[in-house]
């Protein structure tokens, strides 16, 4: 049986060589990268690439021979299912069979991807576009994720992707439209592709050159203020650089990150006024940045749910807050549902590398006030804030630390457990709260975690929630008969050998090593499976290392941490840390710097817009909208102008000190004065602004100006988002409106042309011109009404097609027109009259015969009008006499 073919062998080979081969090579590179970076593909990129290429090639081969895609795909799927089914009988051991099936599945998925791509290229022109855009979008994200923000490092992977995508779009349609009869095909194709390659090279080179300054800015910006790049690259998996400093991650994947953080990288220093009952011993608390309450089982990632119920997280945007102006939200306190063993504590945070926008504080914070960094510390600390929180006595870091064999600590922690044993269950907890904070994914893997949790508490004979938590903590701390700990801390926990296997299960049941995210995640699911409401907290582990300055804590990058919070009725959310301490870890250096102990009182704080600044006299004017004087707000009669002396002022941005020239009119600023002059001028109760301002020196001495407005080049992330978020709906609406307008213009073109011709005919100065435009207008009118002049002379057209049907006298007119055009004889009066009266009478007559609706319908057809003008000059529209 001879198999019919879709296209010639020439076209088939063109598909192999021009579409298949580049795609297979490109895909091999992508698989190679995936193996390198993600380590999920068992490091067998060559065979995986061959699987994809085989699928691609077979699809092109099958399509050329008209083999049906759906039938063959179903056969392949059936074959795969059969292999899976048969594997359980063939392999001697269950794991071998399982591994074999997973590996086969892996190869088969790639084969299927190649198969679909090959068929798509062959069959559908639109698939090429879809493929190209998909590849481009995915790779942009991948490149942005894995590449260092350096211009050259970005260009190297991006340009090949761009070239491939453009090439595929170009070649896909080129092959589809090629004439199979063309001889010298190879040379023909080669020339086309070389020419296109040259064009692409030019365009990409120009684009790269044009964008060079912008890319350089990004490169510079992400060097983090000139600091060596490696500092950013060595970040903890729980921290990231947000452009202005270190911040905690917004998602926490259980993937094989290198968790070795930079131990020398100081993020911030905190003064926490929380002491034990003796009032001397500092009581450290974990600092919280955010909570992870959701788990995406597909990506194995914990996520922040901004819509979580009972959200007690106070998360102000610090960069938007003016200096010294406080922000308070006591609503979070009620959401924490805690009232036992609570007290209010203060803290002052001085940031070094921690992002200026990042807010962190022990739970439950409800108040923040940005403050100035003392002058002598400004080189070290970029910004600072003061915060207040309602802390629990049971949340001391000493209660939270995993004792890991420290009997003294374990004994101390018993006090906390004794208090919590008063909570027998969660019967009184709100149902929606319980439902949300005890939810778990469904599946065999999670069932095994449930089973483990049940086994643990059964062995421990734990009844109360806190005993269950202790049992789980102890489970992680247990050792075998030789005293070797069962669970270990590891920066590199490894990944399961089988792709897409559950990493938590791998951690819990196989590897038993991991870092804090693993312990926190596993604990969360163990707790939730036992019905204990819990969530993961991320922030910073507090270590009391300072003997000289009690209450001062130093936070390095390696202290970024994740742990679990469990909720107890009345006590609220309490921290529990089940992470096994890293026995190999080197302690962060002892603090050797002096904390910003000197305090200075900000007597006057003004917030408003800068009107102007004179850099010579160093006098600035601002319009004040809010004012604090001696820490008390002043009632202003609207916006008030103030003149400032900024000779001694330090100009600050979030990122640190800047020059006076950075101040631009229109900027929102906060001006602070520590001047002793104000110390002598205390506020008088009931005093109005006018009287108060009269007492002040003019200009007002200012010591510090903080710019609230974003930097001109180094925009903050939020502003960037505002700038870059494309208003698609607006664009779509405008597009629609423009399309409608274009449509209206298009359909009115024929009438506009006719009106113009008729007007020219009516108002023509000379008889010749009048005759010409009358002729044109008449013929255009008829053409537009669909009465076309096919291959006949104008005279025949008028005599046979027009006059007998519509009762017009067009033939007479054309006769006269042609006489005028081609003859040297002058027209007589009657002929002149015919020309003068022809067009209006003609149109009237035609209108009588053709109803308005039909005329309107025809007159919106732009194609007919185009047809009139795309005909050669056989209509007599040639030169005028």
């Amino acid at each position, binding site marked *: 049986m001879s198999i019919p073919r879709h296209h010639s062998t020439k076209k088939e080979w063109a598909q192999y060589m021009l579409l298949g081969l580049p795609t297979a090579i490109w895909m091999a590179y992508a698989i190679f990268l995936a193996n390198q970076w993600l380590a999920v593909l068992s490091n067998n990129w060559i065979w995986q690439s061959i699987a994809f290429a085989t699928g691609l090639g077979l699809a092109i081969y099958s399509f050329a021979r008209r083999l049906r895609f759906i039938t063959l795909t179903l056969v392949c799927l059936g074959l795969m299912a059969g292999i899976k089914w048969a594997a359980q009988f063939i392999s001697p051991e269950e794991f071998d069979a399982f591994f074999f099936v997973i590996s086969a599945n892996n190869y088969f998925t790639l084969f299927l991807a190649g198969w679909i791509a090959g068929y798509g290229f062959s069959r559908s022109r639109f698939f090429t576009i879809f493929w190209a*855009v998909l590849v481009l979008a995915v790779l*942009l*994200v991948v490149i942005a994720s894995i590449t260092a923000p350096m211009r050259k490092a970005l260009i190297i992977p991006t340009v090949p992707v761009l070239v491939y995508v453009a090439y595929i779009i170009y070649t896909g349609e080129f092959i589809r439209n090629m*004439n199979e009869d*063309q001889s010298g095909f190879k040379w023909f194709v080669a020339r086309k592709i070389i020419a296109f390659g040259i*064009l692409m090279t030019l*365009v990409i080179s120009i684009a*790269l050159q044009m964008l060079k300054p912008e890319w350089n800015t990004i490169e510079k910006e992400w060097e983090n203020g000139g600091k060596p790049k490696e500092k950013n690259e060595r970040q903890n998996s729980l921290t990231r650089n947000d452009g*202005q400093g270190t911040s905690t991650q917004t998602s926490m994947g259980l993937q094989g990150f290198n968790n070795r953080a930079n131990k020398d990288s100081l993020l911030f220093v905190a003064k926490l006024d929380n002491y034990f009952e003796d009032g001397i011993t500092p009581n450290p608390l974990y600092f919280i940045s955010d909570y992870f309450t959701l788990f995406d089982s597909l990506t194995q990632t914990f996520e922040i749910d901004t819509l979580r119920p009972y959200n007690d997280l106070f998360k102000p945007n610090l960069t938007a807050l003016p200096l010294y102006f406080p922000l308070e939200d006591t609503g979070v306190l009620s959401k924490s549902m805690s009232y036992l063993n609570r007290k209010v504590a203060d803290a002052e945070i001085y940031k070094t590398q921690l992002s200026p926008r990042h807010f962190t504080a022990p739970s439950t914070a409800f108040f923040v006030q940005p403050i100035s960094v003392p002058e002598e510390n400004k080189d070290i600390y970029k910004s600072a804030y003061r915060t207040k929180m309602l802390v629990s006595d049971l949340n001391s870091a000493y209660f939270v630390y995993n004792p890991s064999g420290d009997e003294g600590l374990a004994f101390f922690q018993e006090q906390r457990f004794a208090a919590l044993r008063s909570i027998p269950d969660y019967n009184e907890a709100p149902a929606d709260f319980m439902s949300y904070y005890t939810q778990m994914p469904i599946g065999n893997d999670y069932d095994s975690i449930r089973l483990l949790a049940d086994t643990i508490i059964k062995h421990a004979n734990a009844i109360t929630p806190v005993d269950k938590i202790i049992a789980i903590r102890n489970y992680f701390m247990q050792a075998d008969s030789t005293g070797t700990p069962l669970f270990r801390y590891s920066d590199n926990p490894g990944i399961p050998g089988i792709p897409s296997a559950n990493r938590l299960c791998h951690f819990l049941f196989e590897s038993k090593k991991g870092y804090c995210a693993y312990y926190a995640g596993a604990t969360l699911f163990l707790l939730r499976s036992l019905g204990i409401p819990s969530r993961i907290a991320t922030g910073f582990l507090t270590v009391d290392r300072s003997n000289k300055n009690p209450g001062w804590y130093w936070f390095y990058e390696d202290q970024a941490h994740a742990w679990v919070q469990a909720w107890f009725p009345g006590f609220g959310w309490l921290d529990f840390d089940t992470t096994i301490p890293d026995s190999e870890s080197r302690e962060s250096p002892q603090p050797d710097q002096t904390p910003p102990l000197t305090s200075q009182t900000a007597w006057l704080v003004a917030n408003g817009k800068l009107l102007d600044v004179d850099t010579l006299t160093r006098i600035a004017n601002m319009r004040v909208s809010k004012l604090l004087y001696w820490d008390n707000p002043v009632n202003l009669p609207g916006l008030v102008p103030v003149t400032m002396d900024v000779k001694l002022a330090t100009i600050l941005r979030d990122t640190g000190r800047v020059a006076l020239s950075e101040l631009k009119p229109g900027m929102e600023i906060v001006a602070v004065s520590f001047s002793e002059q104000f110390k002598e001028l205390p506020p008088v109760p009931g005093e109005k602004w006018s009287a108060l301002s009269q007492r002040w020196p003019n200009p007002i001495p200012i010591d510090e100006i903080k710019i609230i407005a974003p930097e001109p080049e180094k925009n903050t992330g939020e502003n960037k988002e505002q700038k870059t978020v494309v208003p698609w709906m607006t664009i779509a609406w405008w597009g629609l409106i423009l399309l409608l307008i274009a449509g209206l213009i298009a359909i009115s073109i024929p009438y506009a042309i006719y009106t113009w011709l008729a007007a020219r005919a009516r108002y023509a100065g000379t008889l010749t011109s009048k005759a010409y435009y009358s002729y044109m207008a008449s013929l255009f009118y008829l053409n537009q009404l669909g009465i076309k002049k096919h291959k006949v002379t104008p005279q025949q057209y008028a005599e046979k097609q027009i006059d007998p049907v519509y009762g017009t006298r067009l033939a007479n007119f054309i006769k006269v027109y042609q006489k005028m055009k081609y003859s040297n004889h002058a027209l007589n009066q009657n002929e002149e009259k015919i020309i003068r009266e022809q067009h209006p009478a003609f149109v009237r007559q035609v209108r009588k015969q053709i109803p308005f609706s039909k005329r309107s319908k025809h007159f919106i057809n732009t194609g007919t009008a185009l047809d009139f003008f795309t005909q050669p000059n056989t209509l007599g529209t040639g030169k005028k006499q």
Partner: protein
Amino acid sequence: MPAMKAPFIVQLRDLQSRFRNFVTFFPFQGYFLAFIICSILGQLWLQRQLLSEPSAFNDILLALNKLVVWVVMPLLLLGFISVIIPYIILWFTYRKRKLQVSLQSPAAQPSGLKQELWLSITPLLQPLLGHLYFKMVYDKGKCRSPKFSLVRKENAIGYAGKKQEGWYRWPLPGIREYEIDSMVIYMEDFFHFFKLALPVRVNQSFFTRPPARNIDPVTLQPTQTEQEVFRIKDWRKVQGEWMHYKNFESNDDVRRIVWKIYARNKELVVRTPEILNPFASHISFNLSFYDHIDLAENPTLKGVCLDFYKSACYALYKNLQQQGMQIRFHADCDIPPRSYENEQQRIEFAIALSKWQNIKRPSEWMNSKDATVICLSSLDNPNDVDYFAENGSKGLTIAFFPLSKAIQTPGGWKGLEWLWIEKEKEPALRTNPVWFLSSARRTMLDNEKRIIHQLKQSEIRYIIMGLDT
């Protein structure tokens, strides 16, 4: 009298035609629209990937995205400019009647339903790195050819300057005459995103030859008797007698006087023509397109079945011709008087132009006494078989072509084959479910059975093409 409203199907076709017109002149290709849609979706997806807080990832992604835009936009702009400039030049050239279009249909054509056309257009600029395509409009604007590019000479590959010439092998849907009314010139950019079209008037007509299909050799004996007049070359054999000559008489044509004899003998004699024995010299090939059951307007019969019949008859004709037979061709269609290069071309043209007709019944116009072979289809009158059996010569053969063989019946192995192999989208091979359910098919099959029955009943020699005799 109020104007009659056109039937719905006519309105639908009119709408379809308008839409096709719109698409022809719409400057953006579907490929471009797909690109725009995919790009917007891609952009939306990328926006969703941005992190909620500032990060290096965001900045890099946005910078990369910007690079893509900076590369794509100039390419699009360049593509559009590369098309619009030569298009405007072409438009002006055409308006000024300076465009020279030459469309030729060479005499030697490839076999099958393909027509080779030679096209030459001057001046016509090709878009930079772009493409030129053409489309023929025929049958008074109702039909269009596929969009095609010209096959150029090997040494003309690349940018061909102002002159575009080359040939196109056009697969045509049926065996008939085609009249090309106009041609659409398309200018497309390198991405095939933009397309500007200009209709150009051309006039050319040609006909498609029936495809030369091989069939098993058919053995036929020539039946038509030819009376040949031989010029007598022998001189007188016997003294005193003039064999084959007679004395000139007053009514004889003076031109027949043999002047050589007069020169020798001074006798006026004239040649007496001798008639040799009659012999079987030719095959009289008679072709009937008679439609007895009045189904000529059925689309399937008018299209696929008619082409099948033409091809089969032509295959028989060629088969006989290849056996060295002298064939005299008779068909019931009127062949327009044209200059044909040879008899072969005349016959091909006659077959190509033939249509089903119900005016000339074969028993009425065919000379059954002289006929050697009579080609009948499933639409012929079964009674004519009887007529030819009674009145035909002894050597008469009826070649019957059952039109039911024109379209393959689905089902059985064919159905299984359908499951695996996609059929060619050629009308001749396309199975039409409507046809298989139609009453026209049943009527035709009934008639076909009757003809076969009559053939079997009669003593006449017959061939059923595609069936065992």
